[in-house]
């Protein structure tokens, strides 16, 4: 059984234990307890054997019977006490294993939270999010399942088989070897059936996911289906998926139905062999009637755990691949690393210096080894404190990336960005987050009240401070329209508010930090007129006394800035005030022309 798959699984488990060393704690004592517990299971067959051979001794021909009652009672009393001890030992082993593994998995979860929060934003894109969440939830769950069922089965059944085999060997080693020899192929048969079963379960899981997916469409797309009278057609699709699921599950239960009987038939064969050989050898070889009867019981007990053990192998595979995925996440290097020798920065009047900055995304696992094409190339410029800068460029020109680098969501591949003369990677994260604040394109709000979304950045803020924050950026009129004031619930991702209103909350939130540098990723989606007015007003107020860097999608924003940086395919091609750039032939004037024409046709 030492194929590479097993070796790989063992290596993964070792790495897992290294990641969570507490898994190993106290495992030795738990094993001892499990052995004691399992030994309780052979008490009954041993008692029967002893009772038949010694207590219920009878004369030849079976006419008179001399039963040694006191011996039987002594034997049974001893057995009962041993059973009690074994039960307590087993209970303790199970609960120790459970407690230890659950605590270790908790540690693993916290470790994952910490690590994932520190991953850079490129590892946090929308496609990845689902898998990150399932690493912390369902993958850790497969491990928990494994420890509380599979691991337990290994522990108890493994111990049981060892002990039963031991007792059988002591009774009659040739018979014992025979039983083991006959049972060996059962493992092979069970593995074969089980691998079929796993495939069948996978198929039915897939069919089930498919069914749920198409049912979800039927429900979430109800309006669309109604509008195009297509409910029946799509309903048929779901019914087809439901049939496929039924077929897959039926197939899986059929294969499952073959599992148990194969153990049963092997059991009958092993017992028959024991009976046949035992009878044939007779008492001449030192075998007794009691030992043979006891042996029959022991054979059943020996075969019982095999089925369960092989069943657990499937679970083990799931757990190992879960562990492998978790380790994969822990192996992703964290985003910008913490500053090693942090330098304190004066929070006032900070100039920004971008010096020959280039950036390319690190290639992902499984993708080519070739370096990704650079997103930014050799960007240099200085932004004195208090400047209102707009960065413009086509989609994919690198303007969003430059914004991210300025906020140190990633570090440049080469070159340096410095604030107040200190390179970003030498500033402690906590102080950096008080100097630079980003308002993203789609500001994220937690499904909670406005107040708690604001306190997210300033946990100790009083209600009055929060209300003042609205007033400070000229939003008191909007604040008054909120149905429950600060206690207004914003809904999931802020869905109770409009896109524009979410941005307003984000601006208030940013203002609470009072940063020296504000980075604004402008929204592309349209905002209704009255909110637009408020946004512009709030932004104007918020810009006072700081540097702002707007990643501008609308040229009207660029027009209002002191200075425009024009990016084209990752290169800074133009840098200057709007009025000047419009007149200079180049990227910006072209962009402006096409924008202007599209706007004029509208009017």
């Amino acid at each position, binding site marked *: 059984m030492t194929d590479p798959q097993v070796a790989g699984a063992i290596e993964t488990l070792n790495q897992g234990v290294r990641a969570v060393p507490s898994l190993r704690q106290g495992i030795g004592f738990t094993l001892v307890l499990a052995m004691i517990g399992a030994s*309780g*299971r052979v008490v*009954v067959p041993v008692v*029967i054997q002893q009772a*038949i051979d010694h207590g*219920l001794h009878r004369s030849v*021909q*079976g006419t008179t019977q001399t039963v040694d009652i006191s011996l039987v009672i002594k*034997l049974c009393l001893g057995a009962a006490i041993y*059973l009690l001890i074994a039960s307590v030992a087993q209970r303790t082993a199970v609960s120790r294993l459970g*407690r230890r593994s*659950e605590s270790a998995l908790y540690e693993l979860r916290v470790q994952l*939270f910490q690590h994932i*929060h520190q991953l850079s934003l490129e590892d946090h894109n929308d496609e990845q999010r689902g898998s990150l*969440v399932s690493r*912390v*939830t369902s993958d850790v769950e497969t491990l928990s399942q494994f420890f509380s069922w599979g691991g337990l089965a290994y522990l108890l059944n493994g111990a049981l088989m060892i002990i039963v085999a031991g007792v059988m060997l002591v009774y009659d080693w040739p018979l014992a070897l025979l039983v083991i020899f006959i049972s060996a192929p059962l493992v092979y048969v069970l593995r074969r059936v089980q691998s079929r079963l796993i495939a069948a379960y996978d198929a039915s899981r897939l069919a089930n996911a498919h069914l749920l*997916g*198409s*049912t*979800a469409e039927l*429900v*979430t797309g*109800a309006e*669309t*289906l109604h*509008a*195009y009278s297509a*409910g029946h057609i*799509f*309903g048929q699709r779901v*019914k087809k998926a439901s049939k496929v699921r039924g077929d897959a*599950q*039926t197939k899986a239960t059929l294969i499952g*139905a073959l599992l148990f*009987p194969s153990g*049963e038939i092997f059991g*009958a064969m092993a017992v028959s062999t024991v*009976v046949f050989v*035992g*009878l*044939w050898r007779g008492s001449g070889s030192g075998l007794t*009637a009691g030992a043979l*009867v006891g042996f*029959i*019981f022991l054979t059943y007990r020996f075969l019982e755990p095999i089925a369960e053990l092989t069943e657990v192998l499937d679970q083990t595979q799931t757990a190992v691949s879960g562990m492998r995925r978790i380790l994969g996440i822990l192996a992703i290097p964290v985003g910008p690393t913490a500053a090693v020798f942090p330098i304190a920065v004066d929070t006032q009047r900070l100039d920004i210096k971008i010096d020959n900055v280039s950036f390319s995304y690190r290639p992902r696992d499984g993708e080519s080894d070739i370096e990704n094409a650079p997103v930014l190339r050799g960007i240099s410029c200085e932004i004195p404190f208090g400047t209102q800068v707009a960065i413009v460029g086509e989609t994919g020109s690198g303007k969003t990336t430059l914004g991210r680098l300025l906020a140190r969501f990633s570090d440049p591949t080469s070159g340096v960005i410095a604030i107040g003369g200190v390179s970003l990677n030498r500033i402690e994260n906590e102080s950096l*987050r008080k100097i630079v604040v980003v308002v*993203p394109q789609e500001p*994220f709000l*937690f*499904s909670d009240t406005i107040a708690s979304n604001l306190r*997210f*950045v300033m946990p100790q803020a009083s209600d009055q401070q929060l209300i003042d924050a609205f007033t400070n950026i000229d939003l008191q009129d909007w604040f008054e329209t909120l149905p429950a004031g600060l206690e207004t619930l914003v809904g999931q991702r802020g869905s109770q508010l*409009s896109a*524009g209103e979410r941005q307003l909350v984000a601006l208030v939130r940013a203002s609470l930090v009072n940063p020296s540098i504000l980075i604004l990723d402008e929204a592309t989606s349209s905002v209704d007129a009255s909110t*637009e007015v408020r946004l512009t007003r709030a932004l104007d107020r918020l810009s006072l006394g700081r540097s702002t860097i707007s990643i501008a999608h609308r040229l*009207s924003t660029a027009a209002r800035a002191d200075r425009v940086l024009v990016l084209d395919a990752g290169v800074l091609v133009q840098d200057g005030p709007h009025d000047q750039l419009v007149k200079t032939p180049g990227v910006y004037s072209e962009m402006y022309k096409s924008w202007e024409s599209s*706007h004029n046709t*509208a*009017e």
Partner: protein
Amino acid sequence: MHGHPTSSGRFRRATTLIRSLVAYHPGLFAISMSGAAVFAVCTVGSSWLLRWIIDEVIIRRFDTDTFSISQTFTAVGLLIGLSLIRACGVIVRRSFAGRAQWRTAQSLTDEVVDVFVHQPPQWHRRQSTGDLLTRAGVDVEASVAVMAPLPYASSVILMMLIAAVGLISTDIALGLAATAVFPILIGLNVLYQRRVDKWFDIAQGELGVLSAAVHESFEGVTVVKAFGAENRETERLAVIASRVQSARIEAIRLRSLFEAALDFVPNLTNICLVVGGAFQVRSGDLSVGELASFIYMFTLLVFPLRLIGYALSEMPRSQAGFDRIQNLRQSPIINNPRTQFVHDNDVLALYSASIGYDTDSVLFRDVTASFSPQSFTAIVGYTGCGKSTFVQSLAGITPLLAGSIKAPRQHISFVFQEPFLFGTSVRDNVCMGHEFSDDDLWWALNIAEADFVHDLPQGVDTIIGERGVGLSGGQRQRIALARAVIHRPKVLILDDTTSALDPNTEIKVLRSIKMKLPESTVIAVASRPSLFGMADQIMFFDQSAIYGPTTHIELLIQNEAYRSLMQAYEKPSDTEDKS
């Protein structure tokens, strides 16, 4: 068990549940039950066989020291033969139980799906998506979960009856003592399932909370990072994770206790049977073989008892799931608003209509408006004033609270603000199961400026949506537009549909709609000023009043609110627009 005060009431409910589930596929279930009966008889038979082998074969062999070939072969033959028959019984029982279970699940799912299909959008809107999905998924599975162990459980009961008779007839005192343990074990099993399940359920609930919190925290990672809150977030999630942990540990603690007790009780019973048996053997009432088979029989029944406990503890969950499905099926099908339209091919008009989602919050009262055929109307107003509800009522997606609608019988196409694409091909998403030629399809995609479909890996047959090729918001919206125009609709309603497109594309799309669908009456909720300019007429929504449809100029002159809205639109771009 709240709500089911008497055990006889609970029993009646359980039998009703089982009867209704079995009624779906009684044949399959009956075959499974016959397999179960074979299994039960063979199991009891095997213990009698064991007694015979011990008494008549083994002990005689060792006592008399003579080896009888024929007897030995009979013993071995019977052992293997009986276990083969028993194995067949098991295969029939299990495979047909599974078949009955999943065919019933299929029937239940189909019933639920029919409800989803027949109920109109206003019904769907009142339900939560998650709740409906639970009915079709978890509830169906829970309902049928009780079916799988049912044949086994019945065969165990049959076995117990035969065994009890067998045990008691072998030896009255010992038999009664052994059978008395069965109810104790069943009770212990049921108690075990309920007590432990409670904690596993709590852990499961906490896990749900954790998943939601983790998802939100990772989704908001930009905010978390932007404000340096990584550690605080980790701590918050750790608190929830520790609740999962402690519920699990409690479940495991209880489980280990019960497991030990469930092992201990039958083992102790066995030991007592040996003592009691010794007395009976001494008095000659019992043979050694009988005693051994007694113990074997008892051991055989211990494990199946656990399954009865499992089946019984599954019952409330199945019951709840099945009840929820029945509730859903019995809810009356609401009328489709479109069936109330008065059909007139040249008119689209509302008469004294009240509009809103329910009678408690009427958005507009007594609206009478008519849209001239083949005109292009833009609907303008502040966010949240009810424009969407208005156009949905016009399209028969939301029912009128009062009043009536006259509309063409022919197609009314509606494009939603948020496009909904199905996880299928572009073709199916556009045609939606209706018959259209490839030429029609490309014609529609072309109007919707969706020529990007050419570049998709399989063209119009590319699978899109959740499991397929990812599309941008604008691309999704253009597919949804093609879906609407392919019908060459008499009425085309766009609910702020084109704002996800960039302004240039938006203009192009609207122009080609005007050009290539000259017969259509177009009504578009507009958020960009660019749209107002294209419209023949404007309908303006202000507070709870509706003005128009009339011309832009007319509104500018007559309506103060409209004027100030127009100014607000112009303001952000006034610096350079007038150059």
